[in-house]
């Protein structure tokens, strides 16, 4: 195998690919060849690097230099300066918000500095489509150890001792689940990897499958030995075609190398895996529903117990774990339970991947030790809130989770503390919200989501979520009453207690947590008929401040409802009766002018002059 002096690691995760990473990689390949460097410099497409906000991203190895927001046009200059003359290009480096000097090395960038990589240890440094690169970084060492030197009891005991808990949501101890399954007398047994990552705003599982698919395969091989399974399934969401393709390649390569199939590594152990694609149903992320989906049925959940570890796929004992959980296993077996459990808090060990999205400067994927404070994630790693706005809340746990207000920013994150705060670990989506986010609107968003995704099997979830969404819609429209709040709380408890599966049992959380932490916003909508964040359309009015308007015609041209009238250099006026509150005028008005304002409450009503909102608004 030839050696190269420099590796150019181009991020080829979904985020970077969407903004042109492959074009940049092709340009790099061409330029490297044109400069005659093809025997010294190797260009590699890696999995997701995590700092999605800054894509397309390039890491130069071994220099550790981090380039960001690359365009094809930057490539010739970069190759000439950095690779020929040895002068890193400062203008392509990352400049932190509110700083002037760039930070050249990836290791020095705040976003990366506070992270601790176990699951994502190979991110951005290996080509996920080459098994050799995974093996070069100790890949399959743990599988070899487990298959050759460990008994099923020892493997389960090691995983139990590590304190690893399920990373998909509820946080059930993984070792205990395996043990329960291992003890079942019935055979055959099955393994499932739950890659049906449906929580909006969470994309860590996709990233792991895309960036390091072999870590999941290796974890499952170890799990198979622990419970005595010969067959496993990897269920991947249909919206993740790149993940499906990379896992498919990984399976083929593992089979060719004798790491899957008959007599793995000559140990006499047989195990194989199959990919099953999901078909777009949020409920299939629930374990019993997912099992029904693999069986070729509608994804309906069923009553537990019996748990899948007792009676799962085709009625047989089945261990089902989330992608991130599986990807933790190889490191635990290779480095030992004591090492793993030295990280984290009393009840939550190891690390957790969070997707940091929404109103945040550094959008991306971060892996941090359990117990880290929310403040550190949002302000140190995430770089705070853009445009100098104020932090309002962070929503954790997707449609099952809740909104955590700024008073709780010093909360150390683990399973228990989040649950206590009214949120939930969930899969680890963190949606940051600023003062322009309306909490009633967010609660309504999630309830509409769960109502649409409810499979309809049980009444509390099917009917309850619908009723809750209707009440919230009424409040958001300024037509709610104080009695609605009482009804909401009552319904929430019924849905929580009466629903069959996790979807319904947790669906009221976004409502309950916003009611608890942001009750004044609900009251503003009901009593003052005002939306303090200026989001709910029925309660706001757009207005052009005459003293600020320069008459540039921009809003007039961009108004889809032709509601703006005026002439060049004359003050423009919005016809409130025709306005559909789309906000186009607000968005296009130049930052220097800022003549378009939003009003709510008394002033908003006065401006609207009782003008009804057009039907399709």
């Amino acid at each position, binding site marked *: 195998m030839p050696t190269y002096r420099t590796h150019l690691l181009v991020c080829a995760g979904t*985020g970077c690919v969407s903004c042109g990473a492959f074009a940049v990689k092709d340009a790099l390949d061409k330029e490297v060849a044109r400069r005659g460097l093809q025997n010294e410099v190797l260009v590699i497409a890696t999995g997701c690097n995590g700092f*999605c906000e800054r894509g397309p991203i390039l890491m130069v190895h071994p220099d550790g230099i981090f380039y960001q927001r690359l365009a094809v046009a930057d490539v010739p200059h970069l190759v000439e300066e950095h690779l020929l003359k040895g002068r890193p290009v400062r203008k392509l480096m990352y400049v932190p918000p509110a700083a002037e000097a760039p930070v050249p090395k990836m290791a020095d960038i705040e976003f990366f500095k506070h992270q601790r990589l176990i699951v994502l240890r190979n991110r951005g440094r290996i080509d996920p489509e080459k098994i050799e690169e995974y093996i070069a970084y100790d890949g399959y060492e743990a599988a070899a150890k487990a298959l050759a030197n460990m008994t099923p009891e020892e493997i389960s005991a090691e995983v139990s001792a590590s304190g690893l808990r399920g990373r998909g949501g509820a946080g059930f101890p993984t070792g205990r689940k395996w043990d329960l399954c291992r003890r079942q007398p019935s055979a055959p047994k099955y393994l499932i990897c739950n890659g049906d990552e449906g929580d909006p705003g969470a*994309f860590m599982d996709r990233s792991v499958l895309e960036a390091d698919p072999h870590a999941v395969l290796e974890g499952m091989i170890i799990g198979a030995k622990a419970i005595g399974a010969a067959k496993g399934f990897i269920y991947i969401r249909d919206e993740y075609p790149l993940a499906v393709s990379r896992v498919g390649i990984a399976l083929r390569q593992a089979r060719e190398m004798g790491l899957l199939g008959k007599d793995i590594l000559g140990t006499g152990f047989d195990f194989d895996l199959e990919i099953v*694609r999901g*078909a777009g149903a949020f409920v299939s992320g629930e374990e019993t529903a997912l099992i029904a989906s693999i069986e070729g049925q509608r994804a309906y959940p069923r009553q537990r117990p019996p748990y899948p570890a007792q009676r799962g796929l085709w009625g047989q004992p089945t261990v089902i774990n989330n992608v991130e959980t599986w990807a933790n296993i190889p490191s635990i077996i290779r480095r030992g339970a004591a090492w793993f459990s030295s990280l984290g808090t009393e009840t939550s060990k190891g690390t957790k991947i969070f997707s940091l999205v929404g*109103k945040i400067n550094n*959008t991306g994927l971060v892996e941090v030790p359990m117990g880290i404070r929310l403040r550190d994630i949002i302000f140190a790693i995430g770089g705070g809130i853009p445009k100098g706005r104020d932090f309002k809340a962070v929503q954790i746990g997707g449609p099952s989770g809740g909104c955590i207000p700024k008073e709780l920013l010093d909360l150390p994150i683990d399973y228990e503390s989040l649950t206590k705060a009214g949120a939930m670990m969930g899969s680890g989506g963190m949606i940051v919200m600023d003062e322009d986010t309306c909490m009633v609107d967010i609660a309504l968003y999630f309830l509409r989501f769960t109502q649409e*995704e409810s499979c309809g099997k049980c009444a509390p979830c099917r009917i309850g979520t619908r009723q809750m969404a209707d009440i919230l819609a009424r409040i958001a429209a300024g037509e709610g009453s104080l009695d609605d709040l009482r009804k909401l709380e009552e319904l929430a408890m019924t849905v929580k207690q009466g629903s069959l599966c996790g979807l319904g049992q947790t669906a009221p959380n976004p409502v309950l947590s916003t009611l608890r932490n942001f009750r004044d916003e609900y009251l503003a909508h009901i009593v003052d008929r005002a939306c303090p964040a200026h989001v709910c359309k029925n309660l706001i009015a757009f207005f052009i401040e005459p003293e600020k308007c320069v008459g540039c015609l921009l809003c007039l041209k961009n108004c889809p409802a032709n509601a703006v009238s005026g002439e060049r250099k004359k003050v423009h006026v919005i016809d409130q009766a025709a306005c559909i509150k789309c906000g*186009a005028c607000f968005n296009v008005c130049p930052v220097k002018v800022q003549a378009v304002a939003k009003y709510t409450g008394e002033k908003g009503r006065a401006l609207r002059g009782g003008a009804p909102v057009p039907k399709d608004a």
Partner: protein
Amino acid sequence: MAQKNQKTAPPGIAPLADDEGAVVRGVVEKYGGRKRAVIQILQDLQERFRWLAPETLEAAARELDVPLAHVYSVATFYKSFSLEPRGRHLCTVCMGTACHVRGGVAILEHFERKLGIRAGETSPGREYTLERVNCLGACALAPLAIVDGRYHGQMTETKANQVLEALIGSSE
């Protein structure tokens, strides 16, 4: 869902043309005729035909030797299946939470106005289909729209206009 069901197999559907029948047979064979693979089979068929016609579903049920009702129960449950023909161009607007807080709703409404159809609908000449999706996990690009497989991140009304003008120009 109810609307989808109205379209279900009326008596006397035209049988699939021979080559289409062969496609269905081929796909079912690819999965070894396993009944549990019905979801995968429908996905492959939809990729091939762009939607699932009543004739396609009937052929799949026949080849798999399962009741037609079972195939329909699956096809109507999962969102990625379309029981209506889709347009030549597919526009998808992401409605994930990150997109929502960054103004995804306004983007979807803009597409609806510009294309003259609501989310989930296809334009009368089968030129455009507009769909919404619950998060594609590309939240750094929020708000996000996908037009004919190409991702357009940090969408604004102005950007959407440019994308749509190019699209409408290409189909005229």
